[in-house]
């Protein structure tokens, strides 16, 4: 991948080192995100998506360790940033909505106090100006300004999640990392917030790393996407290509694992009920701007059996 990427990850390997066992959560992963691009990262639970996001923001804590590879952001080596550089980098350059966003708010401060802090800590604004901006942000995510005075526990899960989304875009960062940003939202609000993020994104031109389990949502929203399995990327390419012409069996199974919203009610079988991929080889080109990991013969057989069950609901 060329170096015109805003974010460029090369051969990243991240491990959780334990006394008994060491988990390689991210295993030789490379991908890039261009300026203004929405990049979707999908994959089974535990495959390393959040670990990648945390590594980009340098939030990995012991026993996690970057065992290899590089992360460049806007030409700068992220893994080499020092304390003050990091402080500027987080929020202003890259902001993240965490998977546990609902719980990331401080329980003893009101919503308004926490939102105001972002502005006063990073920008030369008065309290009053900051408060006005907080109100606008809250309305953007469809929450009444009056809720600025509420404490986190007084809001529903989805409302808290929306507050955190509003906080992440507050400083108009160049890149937004959304780790499962809408799991707690109803589809109506989800659609409106994603439309809002898309509008903002088009207006301000920031890039998005979008992590979700919701393949429909991902395909709808992303330009490019990658599918991970057990720390490895198994397929990467334009979202619509992966949707219509997925090359890897795992991607296809993931795309077809959704129960339909119309028609007959049919029994589906989840992946992960027994069958595991054992070895994932390096990505190889399978089409223009489209890569997939070749599947070992052994894996091919077991997965093929499994996916006939999983695809029962489609076609």
């Amino acid at each position, binding site marked *: 991948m060329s170096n015109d990427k805003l974010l460029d990850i090369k051969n990243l390997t991240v491990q959780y080192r334990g006394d008994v066992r060491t988990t390689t959560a991210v295993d030789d992963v490379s991908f890039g995100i261009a300026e203004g691009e929405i990049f979707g990262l999908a994959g089974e639970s535990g495959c390393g998506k959040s670990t990648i996001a945390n590594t980009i923001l340098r939030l990995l804590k012991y026993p996690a360790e970057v065992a290899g590879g590089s992360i460049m952001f806007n030409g700068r080596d992220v893994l080499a940033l020092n304390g003050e550089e990091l402080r500027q980098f987080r929020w202003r350059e890259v902001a993240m909505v965490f998977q546990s966003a609902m719980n990331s708010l401080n329980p003893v401060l009101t919503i308004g106090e926490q939102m105001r802090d972002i502005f006063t800590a990073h920008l030369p604004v008065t309290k009053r100006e900051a408060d006005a901006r907080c109100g606008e942000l809250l309305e953007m995510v469809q929450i009444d300004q009056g*809720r600025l005075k509420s404490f986190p526990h007084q809001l529903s899960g989805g409302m808290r999640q929306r507050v955190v989304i509003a906080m992440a875009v507050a400083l108009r960062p160049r890149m937004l990392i959304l780790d499962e940003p809408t799991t707690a939202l109803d589809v109506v609000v*989800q659609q409106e917030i994603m439309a809002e993020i898309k509008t903002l994104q088009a207006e301000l031109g920031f890039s998005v790393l979008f992590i979700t*389990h919701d393949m429909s949502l991902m395909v709808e929203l992303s330009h490019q996407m990658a599918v991970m399995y057990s720390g490895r990327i198994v397929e990467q390419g334009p979202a619509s290509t992966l949707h219509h012409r997925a090359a890897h069996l795992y991607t296809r199974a993931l795309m077809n694992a959704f129960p339909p919203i119309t028609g007959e009610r049919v029994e589906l079988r989840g992946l992960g009920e027994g069958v595991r991929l054992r070895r994932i080889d390096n990505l190889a080109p399978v089409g223009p701007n489209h890569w997939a990991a070749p599947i070992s013969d052994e894996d091919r057989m077991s997965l093929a059996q499994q996916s006939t069950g999983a695809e029962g609901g489609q076609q």
Partner: protein
Amino acid sequence: MTATTTTTATPILETRALVKEFQQGGFLSKRMLRALGGVDVSIQPGEILALVGESGSGKSTLARCIARLEKPTSGQILLDGVDVLTTEKGHASREYRGRLQMVFQDPFGSLNPVHRISHFLERAIRNQERLTGAALEERLESLMARVDLDANMLASYPHELSGGQRQRVAIARALAVDPKVILADEPTSMLDVSVRIGVLNLMRALRDDKGIAMIYITHDLASARYLADRIAVLFAGELVEEGESLEILANPAHPYTELLVSAVPDPDRAGSYDPERRAQLRQRVLAADSCPFDGDPGNPCSRTEPVRHRVGDAGLRHLVRCHLYRPATAAGANALVPTVEDVAS
């Protein structure tokens, strides 16, 4: 795949006119927020009811009230026909908690980080029976297997598990006490789709094998349709529609249900989101000026009473609240609060 439930049997769980109000604001600006405005739900033994609806509409509050984690302002909760708010004032008995288990929305908050996974399951098992040594070990392993987790993980701490793995532990913990009813508050929203199906199948198997009744709270309409016998739609603290799952999604009768169904993500119609049409639908949700069920024999439309009209055959158990009804007190939900433009248009 649909349970054969008879509507005449005693519901295993029922709420009647359940109201929950929260106080909002500080000492000077006290304001009551009505999170539940009189909710009637009932489920039969072995029935799965999906509760869907707007974020902030009171789904979790309803579940928390039933689980007795929150004290309802008024109304009744009947477990197996017994009004538990009068028989067990104050706190729920240990027996009640054994019969009714809750799986929470957020796996990150529900597991204390200082304990190993085995601790959570052991504690739950002990509530039920005295097991030690190999028998306990075996039970732990079978619980882990039930939720598709490796038995090795019993020795892990919650932070060492991914979000999805943690949620499966929470489900295993609920299963450990052999409950009659499981209240599952978005148990699968953090699971990837392939595992999600596995968990839904697991929930269905628990219903089929053990007759566990469930309230399944979710934002994922497709999974509600897949798992549940019936779907109930909550909006602003009140039920607006309920009916047999396939029926209600195919023929949504309330404007809010219609809005919800129209917003399900679908890559094949990407870009179909139309703010203008959305505004029109919202307008109908908030201020419909006619009701298609006008003339319903015996159930005249009403602006002041939450009249429920029947949709289609009685067998579909499909009921919709009158479109004209306007609750007197503003409820908690505010995602659909009318903006100035909405009302003007």
